[in-house]
């Protein structure tokens, strides 16, 4: 039978989101999305020995936006930064047992917010130059992608 609505995992992460909140003076900070489009996510990371030691998020958005944010923080926690950079949007959606097709783009920005936070850390520590960061703060997740307005 075709899946109707959100998966149980999406609803679990939406109703009981993990790692909600703010990290004061974070090592890295990523913010993607746009309230005009109905989705805005921010991710804070604490880095220790090149690993995501702690991670927190706050999200304005629909059920899947919140579930995606929660899931990506769980997936990234404890991983090395290099590994965390490899987490894709699809990985997050798969880990949530799928997202409705129309939600795959607009609300699936968790991986982008995570990558933006890691790049922010790399810029701050001089590993990459600011212009080499692929994720611009406060911008849409993918280049050229918009919410259609």
């Amino acid at each position, binding site marked *: 039978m075709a899946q109707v609505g*959100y998966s149980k995992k999406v*609803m679990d992460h*939406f*109703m009981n*989101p993990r790692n*909600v909140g703010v990290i004061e003076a974070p090592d890295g900070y990523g*913010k993607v999305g746009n*309230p*005009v*489009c*109905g*989705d*805005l*996510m*921010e991710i804070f990371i604490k880095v220790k020995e090149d690993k995501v030691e702690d991670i927190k998020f*706050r*999200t*304005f*958005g*629909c*059920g899947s*936006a*919140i579930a995606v944010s929660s899931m990506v923080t769980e997936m990234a926690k404890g991983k090395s930064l290099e590994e965390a950079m490899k987490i894709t949007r699809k990985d997050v959606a798969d880990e949530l047992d799928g997202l409705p097709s*129309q*939600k795959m783009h*607009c*609300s699936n920005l968790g991986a982008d917010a995570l990558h933006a936070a890691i790049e922010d850390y790399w810029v701050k520590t001089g590993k990459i130059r600011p212009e080499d960061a692929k994720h611009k703060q406060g911008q849409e997740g993918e280049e050229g992608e918009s*919410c*259609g*307005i």
Partner: protein
Amino acid sequence: MCGIYLDHQSCCPVDPRVEEFARHFSGKDFGNPSALHSRGLTAKAALEEARARVAELIGAESPESIIFTGGATQANNLAIRGAALRNAAKGKKLLASQIEHISVLNPHKDLKKGGFELNLIPVDSSGQIDLSSLERLADKETVLTSIMYANGEIGTVQPIGEASEIIHEKGQLLHVDGTAAAGKIALDVQKDGIDLFTLSSNDIYGPQGAGALYVRPGVRIQPVLFGGGQERGLLPGTENIYALAGFGEAARLARLEMAGESMRLQTIRDALIKEILKIDEARLTGHPSQRLPHHASFRFSRIEGESILLTMDAMFNIQVSTGSACSSRTLEPSHVLLAIGLRHEEAHGSMIMTLGRQNSMDQVPAIVSATEKTVERLRALSPL
């Protein structure tokens, strides 16, 4: 625990009395109303009885002015395509309010592809149409104007009588989508000067899959479907007797009970609005007084409507609706909320509560408390 259902604008439970009345027509009283034998005549009698009851609900001249359809979408399509194409020789301009239901806007837009010109009548921040724009836009080329009686998303009731005067002075046709209003407020298509009026069965607690178009005597429209000549040839196809018989019974009950029931719901609605507006940065959407008696609609800053809907449902077993983009198939924000001047980010935080026969005043504290907790929970998650 039993939930609290507050989404009557999208679906009403079929009234048990309607179900009891209609079930005979799916069982022992089966028959095709076009057949001349006794079973056919029984079905035909039920169909005509239903037609009379629906006519009475809206103050129609006669039962013959009611064309049964498979729902409001079919009735809207028949009204708009049928009237525009039948009268195309007189002019090729169409008007519709900005906040019409999609089943009104889309047939208009489709006619635009076929060479008609379509203009939209703007609404003010309360959702009422601007009559001076109507006066200006309804030029001599205009053949048909669609204005809904009341809006299902913001509850605003339109000044139909005044709009009708403007349109009829110019000899044009007025189509009114009465889906959200029927059974909630007293309707009189003759007094209001309505030429074409759309109704839905389920919105008055009748079975789904039935609706009606009132066509004022003397108004000519053409069919959009072709077949065996049922419904004066305007909506051919064997009638859904079960649903239509139920529709008739639902119309009878609505007419009997509407005055008292609407007053009861309005009291509950007013209590809900008063309490929910105490929440920080909560705003009413739609008109403060010219609104449907069962309708309370809000917007909350910094949170998103689909999340509101899901939290209210999963955490409190309360079913509400939203005009948020994220809950729609197209991911476009509600055209209604944009038309009343909300910015996109404001339109995302909408919540709609529509009351019905099973709601009561003693549910208000639970609804208000659930709304407060939902808003608080989502704001705690929000970076805004």
